């Protein structure tokens, strides 16, 4: 083999190691029999995986994360689908400005979003912790919802709505009868993207979490500051496999990558 023909496989190998290596280390560490988070793992056991399910605060924060991911994504879609429809179907004055504002939470660093929400919204208006987290997550997911749904709307002819109306449907009826079924894939993709974004969110949640109300990633960080055992690795592995499973199923059944 020449040096040239080795270059590509070697580069790919390094890249894969860089991307997947840390994940493999975490997965290995979660099966450790030792008392501390370490690599290589000491022995083999499932005790840390079992322990994850017994920690009370993990259960509570997992429930909170699920609530934010599902509720926040649903809320973002309820706002985002009509917004995308308006942006793609009507020539609105200032449409570009609206698009930019809607996309802002993607562009602005999470730390800044979190801090400003805390300083200028949550504290002055006395918003409760759960509500603050819910609103913040909705705002963070909205850009993804608008983008993905807009992309599928742009690929859909608008005259099918007129055709539906001339066949006796109302305007709103036409939206539900002929637009929604045709952007279903885009909506599900937006849902998955929103869910994953929310579930993995750290910086904004960090600012807005409060006593007794935390998302799972924040709870894991807090836990690690006190206890340095492999249960965090075990939990990380479980979450990673959950995400992989969702994305794999989405690609398999919906052709997820067409929309993102």
């Amino acid at each position: 083999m020449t040096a040239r023909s080795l270059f590509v496989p070697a580069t790919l190998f390094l890249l894969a190691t860089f991307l997947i290596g840390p994940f493999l280390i975490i997965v290995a560490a979660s099966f450790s029999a030792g008392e501390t988070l370490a690599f290589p793992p000491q022995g083999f056991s499932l005790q840390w995986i079992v322990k994850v399910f017994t920690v009370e605060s993990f259960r509570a924060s997992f429930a909170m994360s699920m609530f934010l991911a599902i509720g926040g994504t649903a809320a973002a879609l309820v706002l985002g689908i009509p917004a995308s429809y308006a942006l793609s179907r009507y020539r609105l004055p200032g449409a570009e400005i609206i698009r930019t504002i809607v996309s802002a939470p993607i562009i602005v660093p999470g730390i800044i979003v979190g801090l400003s929400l805390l300083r200028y919204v949550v504290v002055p208006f006395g918003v409760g912790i759960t509500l603050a987290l819910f609103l913040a997550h909705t705002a963070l997911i909205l850009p993804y919802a608008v983008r993905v749904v807009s992309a599928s709307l742009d690929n859909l002819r608008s005259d099918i709505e007129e055709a539906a109306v001339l066949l006796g449907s109302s305007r709103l009826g036409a939206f539900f009868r002929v637009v929604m079924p045709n952007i279903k894939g885009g909506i599900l993709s937006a849902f998955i993207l929103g869910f994953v974004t929310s579930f993995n969110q750290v910086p904004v949640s960090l600012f807005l979490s409060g006593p007794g109300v935390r998302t799972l990633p924040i709870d894991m960080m807090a836990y690690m500051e006190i206890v340095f055992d492999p249960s965090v690795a075990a939990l990380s592995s479980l979450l990673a496999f959950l995400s992989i499973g969702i994305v794999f199923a989405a690609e398999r059944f919906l052709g997820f990558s067409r929309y993102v």
Partner: protein
Amino acid sequence: MCDQSYLSLEKLTLAYGDSVAVADLDLSVRRGELIALLGPSGCGKTTTMRAIAGLLPVKSGKVILDGEDMTRTAPNKRAVGLVFQSYALFPHLSVYENVAFGLRLKGMKGAELDAKVQSGIASVGLAKFADRKPAELSGGQQQRVALARSMVMEPKVLLLDEPLSNLDARLRLEMRTELQRVQRETGVTMIFVTHDQAEALSLADRIVVMKNGAIEQIGTPEDIYNRPTSSFVADFVGFENIFKLEDGALKTENGSVPLSVAPGSDAPSAVGLAWRPRMVTLGTGPFRGTVRGTSFAGHSREYLLDSALGPIKAEVDASEPVHVSGSDLSFDLPVHKAAHLSRIA
């Protein structure tokens, strides 16, 4: 208004925002007629069609259908069908469900629905394709689905947007026959929009030629083709030699050229005369011209002449003697063949 009128547009004015697209349009269509709205893009024909369907609000004037004022009626309550240029089939539904769509909304179901949908699909020859999705059909098949989808609703008026323009020559003939058959069998009133004069001439009972948001001429295909009344229509149907007429003389940029014969008394108001290239006689006549260019077109030969009247286009049988470029010859514009124009641009 004559009592035969089934669909009337009265002083119809349509606008997009502040820009008026159609102004004060009057049109009266009889029941069962096949009307073509013909004109170049931007003439307001599609706008007019959309207003009849109710997809575009009317600025002023009226749309009256079957004795009812429909001007403010919502498009889903008008019983007007539209076959879109893009067909606008619902991509997520099968051919069957596309055709059933409107009937289901009417509340039809069960055996009645099934029978109606099946016969609708069969009538356009697509019985074998009932379970296919639109994306699995050819353009011509998609159009037939769109036609069936509109026709099962038994519309009072069927509108068609450029029904033949997306089809190749063979399918065009097929679709033309199909549309004529549908019209014969159902007696539905049809209005179609086209920019193609051949399409309008071959299909329509009457042609409405439009220009800049107004009607230029209404007439049978023979009227439009043989007796255009304005320079615009004359040019559109191939009268390429158009002249202003003043005091029995053709007016040109260089002055007047008197005609040997005065234009007929049947058109005393004529302000212009127009001739097709085929109508120009070469070799004899009172005018003289120089051959500038010539081209062979199979059965005929085309000439471009320079004359005191300006450039003249002539077309003669290929069997006639050939005049080479640069040769001087006499020609005639026979007044009895000319189209008498009452409006000239």
